[in-house]
């Protein structure tokens, strides 16, 4: 592999990793806070992409879609948590089952509303070109995805460490019961967390749509990759989501071209290795079973 090729594939891997981070951040947040593995996360991602498709068709603006889809998904999350999840609080398996049900309903509704054919979102004007980089040209949009992923990680880190909401979330992740005893409205906090998780999934859907397209089955792929990222990185921490996506993105990219017969097996080999030597994930916190 020539240095130019190595560099280009590294960029491909990083931009894929950045996208995985946007996708996995929401899943990780919801798990850390609420102890719920939200299996509807992939469906939220898919819905975000389709909402973006409609916004772009109506207004022609990708940037409007980038704002509208997360808001729509956030609203849906804000509705679903008190309506459904709250009733099963503490019953983890039932909650997981419930989120599977929610994902089935969402995916079927998407099929009815938007159809089941393959769709694609055009690249936003200004980001549809390529720039000269070492060893040739590289698409601007993929560089944008990397930048966006880094900016989002920084923004989440600031919110997490420097704001009151971030403080409450950290406290909730540590011990939600105690937080409630101290007079914090944990119901509201949980609803907001779930909404933010859904909004992040929707955001990932918009960012991914121009590259990966829209089609039935995209929800399952997204869910699988985001689960791999959070398991490898460590469930429930921001650092874990970063570490997981920075590792899984490039490994998946290089794995697919170097060992193409085992393309799908490479990332699962990583999962197996990490679970074997560090069962909590790379940066996972040790959780005591409650």
């Amino acid at each position, binding site marked *: 592999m020539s240095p130019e090729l190595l560099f280009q*594939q590294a960029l491909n891997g990083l931009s894929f990793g950045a996208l995985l981070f946007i996708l996995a951040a929401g899943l990780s947040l919801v798990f850390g806070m609420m102890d719920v593995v939200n299996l509807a996360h992939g469906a939220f991602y898919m819905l975000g992409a389709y909402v973006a498709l409609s916004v772009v068709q109506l207004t022609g603006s990708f940037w409007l879609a980038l704002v509208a889809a997360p808001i729509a998904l956030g609203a849906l999350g804000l509705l679903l948590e008190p309506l459904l999840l709250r009733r099963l609080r503490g019953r983890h398996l039932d909650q997981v089952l419930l989120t599977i049900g929610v994902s089935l309903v969402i995916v079927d509704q998407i099929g009815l509303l938007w159809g089941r*054919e393959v769709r694609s979102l055009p690249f936003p004007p200004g980001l549809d070109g390529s720039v000269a980089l070492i060893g040739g*040209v590289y698409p601007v*949009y993929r560089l944008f995805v990397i930048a966006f992923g880094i900016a989002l990680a920084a923004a989440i880190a600031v919110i997490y460490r420097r704001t009151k909401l971030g403080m409450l979330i950290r406290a909730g992740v540590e011990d939600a019961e105690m937080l409630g005893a101290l007079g914090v409205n944990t119901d509201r906090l949980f609803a907001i967390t779930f909404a933010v998780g859904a909004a992040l999934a929707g955001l990932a859907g918009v960012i991914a749509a121009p590259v*990966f*397209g829209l*089609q039935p089955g995209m929800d399952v792929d997204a869910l699988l990759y985001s689960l791999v990222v959070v398991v490898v990185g460590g469930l429930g921490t921001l650092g874990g989501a970063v570490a997981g996506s920075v590792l899984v993105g490039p490994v998946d990219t290089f794995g*697919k071209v170097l060992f193409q017969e085992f393309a799908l097996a490479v990332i699962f080999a990583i999962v197996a290795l990490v679970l074997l030597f560090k069962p909590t994930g790379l940066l996972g916190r040790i959780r005591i079973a409650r």
Partner: protein
Amino acid sequence: MGGFSKKNDLAAKRGYTYRLTRRQFLVASSAAALAACAPAAVTPGASGSPSAAPGKELKIGQLLPFTGVYAELGNSMRRASELYFKLNDGRMANRPIKFIYEDDANVTATGVAKTQKFIDQDQVDVMMGVVPTPLAYAIRPAVHAAKMIFIDTNAGGNALTRDTADCKPACKSPYIFRSSFSSYQISYPIGDYLSAKGTKDWFLAYANYGFGTESAADFTTGVKKNGGSVTGNVAPPLANADFAPFVTQIKNQPTKNVYSFFSGADAVGFIKTWNQLGLPAAGYKMYGAGFLTEQDVLKEVKDLANGAVTSLFWAVELDNAENKKFVADFQKQYPLLPDVFAVQQYDGMRALDEALKSLGGDTTDKDKFSKALEDVAFKSPRGDFAFDKTTHNPIQDIYLREVKTTGGQTVNTILDKIAKVTDPGK
């Protein structure tokens, strides 16, 4: 349902025929009661006629995906069936048609179970459909054993209409026909044609699953026949999300002619990434099996696919009277253009209709039924249509098409025709 079939197997093993299920008894007895109450309501054609005889309802079991990744293919094939039904007043050889649709959801086990339902419970007269090749292979034993006439209207795996060692992974059957294509037909001729014209060196990019690898192998055979060679390949997994790693690999090797096998979402992703990474400017040229540039893909990628040369047995722009009528009829019924899957299904219906006409509508003798289908020949939207008598795969013209955008419309323009391509199966 599973219980029924198990019972039947058991009965067959013990050497007696299983006579009447509880459900059949209930249906029969209530029908008899109804008939006794209202004899005037019974239609003349239906009364007293033996099973599967002329005038009696013709049950067509259609096994298609209506959910999952191939849902849109299933929908398209259903539309074509309904169109044929409407244009022929819902009858074939004077027998009223009844479609029974089952959704295989692209899960092989589900499709196998639904096939058993068609055979045991619905007792359909003929089966049609099946999109994925693995499913077509999986239902082959049951279909063959039941002497069920099955017209495969999509799955293109070569083995289904060939004589293979130990029938692995599948093999031809007197009762199985195909109205679509074999992998060989859409990949070998274009390899042969282009290499004979002087394009000798090729790089391959194909979805890494049975049908993709089979097509790549057939293309390679065609190229090698004329002294050409394949210099390398990339094989992304089926339903691959990110094509950048693979297209980057293509761009970092010197062979400029790339033959690819992708369809649907994969094709859209491949073509978009191909342009994003600047392959046209770097002198790379895209070739492929026709699905790479069918309508479902072109409407999303538009002029990004310009210049791609692909081969298929049909194109919506094909200039013949049957195709013009078919496209017009389809558009009168639905607000969209027909696709190749609709043509495959429509031709399957037509072949069935022609065979029934020659049988006077009698489908009781499955061997006669098979014989009648073998003799079918008609003008289809794709050109002359006939089954190869030895394999039951269609003998058809293959068209070379180039994607061009004129007046805002991106279409496949016909470059040339390779006449009467027959699958080499024995």
